[in-house]
C-alpha cells in the first residue's frame, strides 16, 4: 500500500501514511484535494466501495477528522483518507455525486457534528433529531450526562464508597 501512496503523492499533497495492517492503511490529504483524490482512487485505482464516512472530534486541537474509508475489491485492501477541517467553521466538499449513499452520510454528519457539505441534497434536513434545539450532539463538548441529569429525574440513591464508609465506621477522627 505504500507503493500506492507514493504514486498518489506525485499528484496529491498527502501526509502521514500509516500502515495499520497489510490490508489497511491511512493517510492524510488536504481538504481541497480530498474529493478529487477520492474520484481518482475510485476511477483509476479500483477503490470503488465507499465503506463509510465518519468524523472524529478532536476538540483539543479544534479539528474534525473526516475519515473516508475506501475498499478495493480486487486487491482486498482498505484505504482510509483522513481530512482535517477547522472545527469552528466546518465545511467540506460534498461527495454525493460519487456515491449514492454519500448524501446520507453527509446529512448525518451535518446533523450530528454540524459539518456543512454545500450542494449535498437534503443535507440540512433533520435525519434523526426533529425539533432538536441543542448543539450538534455528537460533538464532544455536548455532555450527554449533564443533559440527561437536567432533563430527566433519577431514582434517588446514595453511593457509599467502601473506603470512606469504613473510615466513618471504624476510625474516623474525633
Amino acid at each position: 500500500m505504500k507503493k500506492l501512496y507514493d504514486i498518489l503523492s506525485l499528484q496529491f499533497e498527502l501526509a502521514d501514511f500509516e500502515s495499520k495492517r497489510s490490508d489497511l492503511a491511512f493517510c492524510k490529504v488536504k481538504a481541497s484535494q480530498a474529493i478529487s483524490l477520492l474520484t481518482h482512487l475510485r476511477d483509476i485505482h479500483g477503490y470503488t466501495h465507499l465503506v463509510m464516512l465518519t468524523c472524529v472530534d478532536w476538540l483539543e486541537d479544534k479539528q474534525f477528522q473526516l475519515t473516508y474509508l475506501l475498499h478495493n475489491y480486487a486487491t482486498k485492501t482498505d484505504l482510509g483518507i483522513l481530512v482535517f477541517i477547522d472545527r469552528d467553521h466546518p465545511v467540506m466538499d460534498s461527495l454525493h455525486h460519487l456515491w449514492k449513499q454519500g448524501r446520507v452520510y453527509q446529512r448525518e454528519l451535518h446533523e450530528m457534528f454540524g459539518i456543512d457539505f454545500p450542494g449535498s441534497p437534503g443535507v440540512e434536513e433533520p435525519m434523526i433529531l426533529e425539533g432538536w434545539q441543542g448543539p450538534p450532539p455528537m460533538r464532544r463538548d455536548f455532555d450527554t450526562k449533564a443533559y440527561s441529569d437536567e432533563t430527566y429525574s433519577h431514582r434517588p440513591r446514595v453511593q457509599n464508597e467502601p473506603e470512606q464508609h469504613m473510615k466513618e465506621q471504624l476510625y474516623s477522627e474525633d
Partner: protein
Amino acid sequence: MENLYPPIVDGKSVYDLNSQKYLKMWHGPQHPGVTGNMSLELDICGDQVIKCNTHVGYLHRGFEKLMERRRYINCFPIVCRICVPEPDTNEYLFAAAMEDLMGIEIPERAKWLRTLNLELSRLASFLMWIGGQSGAFGMGTVAQWTMAHRDFVLDLFEEWTGARIYHMYTIPGGVRGDLPEGWDKRAEKTIAAVHKLLDEINYVMLNNAIFKQRAVGLGVITPEMVDAYGVVGPNARCCGLQRDIRKDQPYLIYDQLDFIIETETAGDAYSRTVVRWKEMYQSIALIRQILAKMPRSGALHATLPNVLHLKIPKGQTYLRAESTRGEYGYFMVSDGSAFPRKVTVRGPSYTHAMALLEDLAVGVNIADLPGLMVSLHTYPPEIER
C-alpha cells in the same frame, strides 16, 4: 379507467401534491413489516409509489456517543444492542477492534467458539428474516414456523451464553466460557430441524406461485448499482457478484472451513431470497464442521490488563465481518485514554435502507413495498446506532 393518472416513475418529474392526483402516505414507523422502527414517507399515485423517503430516528440510542464516555469493558455490554436480531457480529467486531489496537492474539479455541457463535446467530437472523419476507407477502404461517425455529436456536444460545437475545459472549480477549455438556447434541437436533424446515420452505415459498409472482422482478439491483450505492452481502450476491468477507478477507477460522459463496444473477427480491435460503444451508454445514473440528481444550480467554484501568494505545483501525446483511464494520479510534475516542459502526442497512431503498421503491406497488424492504434485509437499529 386504465391509466387515468399515469404514474411518474422517473423520479425527476415535478408533480403537484395538491393536484388531488397524488397522495402522501406514511408507512411505519410502527409497521409489522419493518424489523424495528423506521418509516417510509411515500408519495403515491394510485397504488404506485412515486417517491420514497426513509425516515429514521425512532431508535436512536446514541451508542457511539455513549461509548465515548465508557471504559472499554463497559462498552462490551452495550454494543450487542446495536443490532437486535444479530447482535453477535457487534460483539465480535468490537472485541476484535480492541484486540487489533492492543495487539492481542486470542486463543485458538476462542476463535472457534466465536465463529460458532457468529454462524449460529446468522442462522437465527436469517430465520427471522424469512419470517419477515414471507409475512410481508401474506404468508404468515411460514413466519410462524421460522420464528419458532429461531426460538429453538435462541434456546441453544440461552443454554450456552446465559441469554437469548443479547448473548454478551464474545468478550474482549476471548469468549466467556465453554459449551455446556451435551450441547452439541441438542444443537444438532435443532439445526437438523431447521434443515428440514428449509427443505419445506423450498416448497411453500420458493416454489410458490404467489411468492414468485410478487417477488420475481421486484427491486432489481444491477451490478452497476452495487458499488454506486455501497451494496453488500446477499444484496450484492443476488446480481452475480462473488463477494463474501468470510472468503475474501477471512477472519477467525473461516479459512479453515469449507463453504462456498452462494450467488444468483437476477438481482431481484426473489433471487435475494434464494441466496439467503442457500446460505442458511451453508451455515448449517459450517456449524456442523465447527462442532466436528473444534479443539475441545485450551484457553478461552487471553489475559488482558485489568479491565477497570485498561487503556489502549493511540491509533485507529477498521474491522469488518460478513453479517447476514453483508459487510458490518467497526471503525475504532483510540486517543490513548481509558475510553474510546470514537467508535463508528457501519451497519449494512445504513446504505440499503436509505439511499438504495429510496430509489428501488419508486414505481413499486405499495402492497409490495414491505416485501421489497424486507428483501433488502434491513434492520433499522443498526442504521442509527
